[in-house]
């Protein structure tokens, strides 16, 4: 039986299809992650709902002290967009190092957050930036922080009838750095990634690719409260993160190796932040 292909052009149509089809309707954003799942026989959708032609999903707009990024904005656009570069360069720096240009041309910010792959670059960066997502359904709309959105590998709090439509990033950071530590080729996913952000609410450090979801520890970040960042404090926080995290083992590094790298990379990210 042939797969049903839906190509809605309005938000209302997307939400109606999502409500109607439930788990049988797979949303297609850039398709780069879905393609991998389908090629490997992990996913065989009965119906696909393409978000490629929905009006308004590709918008980037400044809204007061926040940046609103439509779910269908591609990695490539975030890499080069002049407003993004000016307002929050860490977003551009992070999306610029995902995979290769061919993938970045299509992969979207909504897609990568909804997929919740443990080894993707953007989730840790978005958590450190204290970003949140807008989840819409035919019956309502809610905002969820990216920190609460991702529960585990490929698992989010998005309900069957909901669509991730927008990402909202506060613009109150005074310094922000994303570091990607690779153990294989340049375009590979990270072995360990660190996103460190100094914002009005304090320091936020998220470590990606080392567990089912990005790791952030608010009590450890609070060690920086009232203290100037220097190499001693950077080392203290790096060591505390390494002690707290129980890293996974995969082809990019063993658990023990990752533990050592976390201490070093968190320290370096914080030193970069102070520089």
């Amino acid at each position, binding site marked *: 039986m042939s797969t049903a292909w839906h190509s809605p052009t309005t938000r209302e149509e997307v939400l109606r299809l999502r409500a109607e089809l439930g788990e049988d309707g797979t949303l297609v954003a850039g398709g780069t992650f879905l393609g991998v799942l389908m090629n490997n026989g992990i996913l065989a959708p009965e119906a*696909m709902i393409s978000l490629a032609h929905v009006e308004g999903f590709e918008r980037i707009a400044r809204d007061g002290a926040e940046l609103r990024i439509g779910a269908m904005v591609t990695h490539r656009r975030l890499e080069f967009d002049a407003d993004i570069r000016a307002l929050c360069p860490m977003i551009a720096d992070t999306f610029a190092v995902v995979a290769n240009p061919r993938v970045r041309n299509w992969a979207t910010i909504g897609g990568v957050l909804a997929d919740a792959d443990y080894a993707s670059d953007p989730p840790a960066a978005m958590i450190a930036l204290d970003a949140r997502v807008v989840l819409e359904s035919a019956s309502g709309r809610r905002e969820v922080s990216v920190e609460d959105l991702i529960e585990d590998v490929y698992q989010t709090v998005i309900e069957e009838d909901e669509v991730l439509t927008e990402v909202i990033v506060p613009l109150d950071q005074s310094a922000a750095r994303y570091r990607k530590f690779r153990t294989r080729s340049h375009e590979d996913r990270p072995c360990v990634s660190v996103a460190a952000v100094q914002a009005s609410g304090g320091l936020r450090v998220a470590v990606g690719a080392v567990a089912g979801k990005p790791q952030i520890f608010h009590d450890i970040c609070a060690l920086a409260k009232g203290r100037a960042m220097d190499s001693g404090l950077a080392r203290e926080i790096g060591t505390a993160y390494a002690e707290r995290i129980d890293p996974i083992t995969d082809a990019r590094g063993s658990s023990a190796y990752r533990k050592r790298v976390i201490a070093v990379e968190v320290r370096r990210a914080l030193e970069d932040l102070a520089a």
Partner: protein
Amino acid sequence: MKIAFELNGTPVEVETDPANMALSVLRGECGITSVRGTCGIGLCGTCTMIVDGKTTASCLMPVGALAGRRVETVDVLNEDDPVIDAFIEANAVQCGFCIPAMVLTVRKLLEDNPKPTDDEIDMALAGNICRCGCYAKIRDAVHLAAAKGNPA
């Protein structure tokens, strides 16, 4: 489902499951064998096509997503395209398996950036793997093609 798009300047319509990947439809129904399947995860680059002006992994794009779009493969180039000449002159080819995608990606790079630096070439081709290891000569070919200029 019938899917209509433009392929190398000609309107085409294929009857297929929209969940089939563009790669298999291009190679099968459309007879375009310059796109090649290798990794199936968008990593190696041999399946590269250009969709609405953007390099794209055809192994990851369901063909349903091509409806109404403009698709190009290396077959769209003239045989005397400066990039093809440059690859031959620079001896940048050994087995040739990755070359159609390399040529297509380089053609696109030079349209966007007519005089790329070594770093810019490396970044643009970061996702195109050559298992013969011709990278240094491929980089020479890019500089040579840049010197020849884009076709009129």
